[in-house]
C-alpha cells in the first residue's frame, strides 16, 4: 500500500482540526474511547456540540484555548491508501510548527473560512507550501453551511485564490467546497451542493497521483555512517550506510565520492531485509565499494557524469523561526544532509512580502516567521542541488550556536555567479 503524507494549512479557526476530526470520524477511524473522551471534554467545557477538533488538539493548553499550538500527527488508512496527517496550527505565532508539519508532506489541505475568504495567513501558508516544494494543494473552502452553500461565494473565493496561486509554484490545485462541521464533501459527496461536480475530499486524497514526485534521476547518496565491524566474521567489511536521497543505485554502477573525487564500483547493496540489486529513495541501505576509498560521514556518492553543486558560497530561501531577528553578519551551525558546518550570513537579499508577493530588498532583517533570500558562506563545502529539483540535498537547517535552537529552514537555490 502507498503512503500519502499530508498537512493542513490556513488561518486560525478556519476549521483545520475539525476537518481532520471529521475525516477520521466519518471514515470510522475513531476509537470509541477516544470519541467518548472528546464528548466528555466538550460537555465539561459547555460546547453546544461535540468539538471534533479535540481529537487532535491533544495538549492541555490547546484544549483550554481552543486553538492548535503544535503539530499533531494522526494516522489512518482506507483500503486504497495509508495516510499520515500533520494537523498544523493556524495562529501566526506558531507558524514554525506549521512549517514543521509541511516539510514532510506530499500534499497540503489549505482551508479558508467561506465567510472571510483568504487572509494574509492563508496566503502565507500557500506560499510556505509552495516554497517547500509541495506539489499538490487542495483548497478547502470550509464552513459552506454558514454561507448557505452558495456557489457564487465558492466561485468568488476560488477565483480570488487562483489569481494569487498562479504566481506561486503549485503544480496541482484542486478546490472543494466543504463543511467540516456538518461533513459535507468530506467523506461523501454532499446533497447540499448539487452544483459541485468534483470528488469528495477523501476520494481525492485516495486517488491523487504522487508517484512521480520523487527524483529517480540524479543519484545522491549522502553517507550517514561508516560501518566497520570489529569481528572475525566481517574482518574486511567496510560499508557506507545511509538513505538513498535520490536516483537509483545498482550493483556494478560506477560512483564518485565527494569531496575526494575518487571513483569506484558498487560491489553490493544491503537493504533492511538483505541484499538488493538496486536501491532507490527513501531506502536505508549499506553500500560496499570495490576500492578502499577514504570516505566518512557527510561525504556523498554520485555518478561521475551527474554531480551535485559543490560550494561554500550558497544562496537560499529561508523561513526564519526565532524570536530574535536575523541580520547579516550572524553565524550559525548548519546541517545539510548528514553534514554539519558553520555558516555566516553574508547578506540578506530581500524579504518576501506575503500579501503582494513583492520582494522588499530594503529590509535589513527577518523577523519571526518572515521568509527571505540570503547568501551564506559555509566553513566546509556543501554538496547540494537546487531544492526544487531535489528536496533531500537542497534543504538545510540553521541552528543557533548559543541556544542550540533550530532557527531557520533553508531551501537552496542554483549557484549564481
Amino acid at each position, binding site marked *: 500500500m502507498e503512503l500519502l503524507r499530508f498537512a493542513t494549512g490556513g488561518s486560525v479557526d478556519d476549521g483545520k482540526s475539525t476537518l481532520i476530526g471529521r475525516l477520521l470520524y466519518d471514515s470510522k477511524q475513531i*476509537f470509541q474511547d477516544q470519541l467518548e473522551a472528546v464528548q466528555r471534554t466538550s460537555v465539561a467545557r459547555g460546547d453546544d456540540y461535540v468539538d471534533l477538533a479535540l481529537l487532535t488538539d491533544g495538549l492541555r493548553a490547546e484544549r483550554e484555548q481552543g486553538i492548535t499550538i503544535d503539530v499533531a500527527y494522526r494516522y489512518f488508512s482506507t483500503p486504497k491508501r495509508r495516510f499520515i496527517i500533520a494537523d498544523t496550527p493556524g495562529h501566526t505565532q506558531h507558524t514554525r510548527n506549521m*512549517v514543521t508539519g509541511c*516539510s514532510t508532506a506530499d500534499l497540503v489541505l489549505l482551508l479558508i473560512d467561506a465567510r472571510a475568504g483568504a487572509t494574509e495567513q492563508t496566503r502565507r501558508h500557500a506560499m510556505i507550501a509552495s516554497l517547500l516544494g509541495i506539489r499538490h494543494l487542495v483548497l478547502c473552502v470550509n464552513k459552506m453551511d454558514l454561507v448557505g452553500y452558495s456557489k457564487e461565494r465558492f466561485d468568488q473565493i476560488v477565483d480570488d485564490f487562483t489569481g494569487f496561486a498562479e504566481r506561486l509554484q503549485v503544480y496541482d490545485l484542486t478546490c472543494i467546497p466543504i463543511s467540516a462541521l456538518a461533513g459535507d464533501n468530506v467523506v461523501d459527496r454532499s446533497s447540499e451542493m448539487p452544483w459541485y461536480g468534483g470528488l469528495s475530499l477523501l476520494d481525492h486524497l485516495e486517488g491523487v497521483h504522487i508517484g512521480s514526485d520523487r527524483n529517480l534521476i540524479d543519484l545522491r547518496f549522502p553517507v550517514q555512517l561508516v560501518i566497520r565491524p570489529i569481528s572475525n566474521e566481517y574482518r574486511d567489511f567496510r560499508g557506507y550506510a545511509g538513505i538513498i536521497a535520490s536516483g537509483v543505485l545498482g550493483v556494478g554502477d560506477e560512483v564518485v565520492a565527494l569531496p575526494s573525487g575518487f571513483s569506484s564500483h558498487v560491489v553490493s547493496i544491503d537493504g533492511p531485509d538483505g541484499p538488493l540489486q538496486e536501491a532507490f529513495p527513501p531506502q536505508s541501505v549499506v553500500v560496499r565499494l570495490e576500492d578502499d576509498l577514504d570516505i566518512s560521514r557527510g561525504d556523498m556518492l554520485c555518478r561521475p557524469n551527474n554531480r551535485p553543486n559543490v560550494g561554500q558560497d550558497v544562496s537560499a530561501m529561508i523561513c526564519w523561526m526565532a524570536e530574535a531577528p536575523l541580520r547579516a553578519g550572524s553565524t550559525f*551551525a548548519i546541517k545539510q544532509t548528514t553534514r554539519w558546518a558553520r555558516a555566516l550570513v553574508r547578506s540578506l537579499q530581500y524579504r518576501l512580502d506575503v500579501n503582494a508577493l513583492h520582494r522588499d530588498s530594503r529590509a535589513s532583517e527577518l523577523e519571526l516567521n518572515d521568509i527571505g533570500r540570503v547568501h551564506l558562506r559555509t566553513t566546509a563545502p556543501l554538496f547540494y542541488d537546487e531544492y526544487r529539483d531535489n528536496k533531500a540535498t537542497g534543504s538545510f537547517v540553521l541552528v543557533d550556536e548559543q541556544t542550540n535552537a*533550530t532557527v531557520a529552514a533553508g531551501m537552496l537555490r542554483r549557484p549564481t555567479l
Partner: protein
Amino acid sequence: MAHRLSHLDTLASEAIHIIREVVAEFERPALLFSGGKDSAVLLHLATKACWPQRVPFPVVHVDTGHNFPEVLEYRDQQVNKLEVRLVVGSVQEDIDRGSIVEQPVPGATRNRLQTFTLLRVLEENRYDAILGGGRRDEEKARAKERVFSLRDEFGQWDPRAQRPELWNIYNTRHRPGEHFRVFPLSNWAELDIWQYVEEQHLELPSIYFAHRRTVFRHSGMLLAVGPWTQPRDGVASEQAFEATVRYRTVGDMTCTAAVESTASTPAEIIVETAVTRVSERGATRADDRFSDAAMEDRKREGYF
C-alpha cells in the same frame, strides 16, 4: 514495482535512518527495552541499522517489580540472543532506599514511580540519547511529540517549546545534562507493528497471544488475578473467572488489562486490530483513564 516502497518498508527505512543518526551523533546512546511489542520491533530495527555490527549501545529496562514473568523471560532471551548489554533500573530498589515512596495501597500502580528510576539510570550512566518505542498513534499527547525530543536537565518535556523539526534533518545539539528521547517508531500505528511482526517473523512474549487466564472485571477492564491484583472481597461485579485473553500492550501488571480474544497468531491479531473499536491504551491501560492530560503530565515530568 516501479521503484515504489510499500508503506511498511518506508516506515522501516525511516526508523533505521533515525537510529543511525543517533549512533552517528551521540556519545552515549541507549535503547529502552521493556519487552513489549514496540520495543521488540525497535530492537529488531536497531540490529538492522547496525548490521553487520552488533548493536553497540546498551538496552535499559526499567523494572517496576510488577512484571509479567513471561516478559522478563523474553527480555533475557532476546538480550542473550543479540548479545547486547542489559542495564536494569529497579523501582523496588529505589523504594527500598527511600528515594521514592509507594502509595500505601496494596497493588498500587508503580507506573508513575518509574519516572524517578528512569531518570536516575539516565543520569548515572550519562546517556545523552534514549531510543524509545513510543508511537504517536498511542495517545494524543504523544501525537504532539517530535522524533528527537529534547529533555532539560531535570528530564522534563516542555510541549510549548519544542524545536521545529524539518524534513529528516534532525538537530541533535544539546547542552551537557540535557538529553534526547528519540522515537524511531513515531509514525507507526498499532496495525503496522503487527504487520511488521508477521512479515519479519518476530518473536514476542507469549502473553500477546490468546491464552487461558483467571481474570476479573475492574472498572470495565479485565485484570489478571495475580500477586498484585485481586478482586475485592464482597464486590459481586469483580468475580474471578477463567477466560481466553491476550494483551495488546505490556506494562506494569497492576495497570495493564487483557482483552478477550482467541487470536493466537500475528495474522489473526491483524484481522482483529483492523476492526477493533477501542484504542490500544483505552482498552488496556488504567493509567491513562484518570484524566485527559494524564499522559501529558507524566511526560512533562520525564516519563517515557
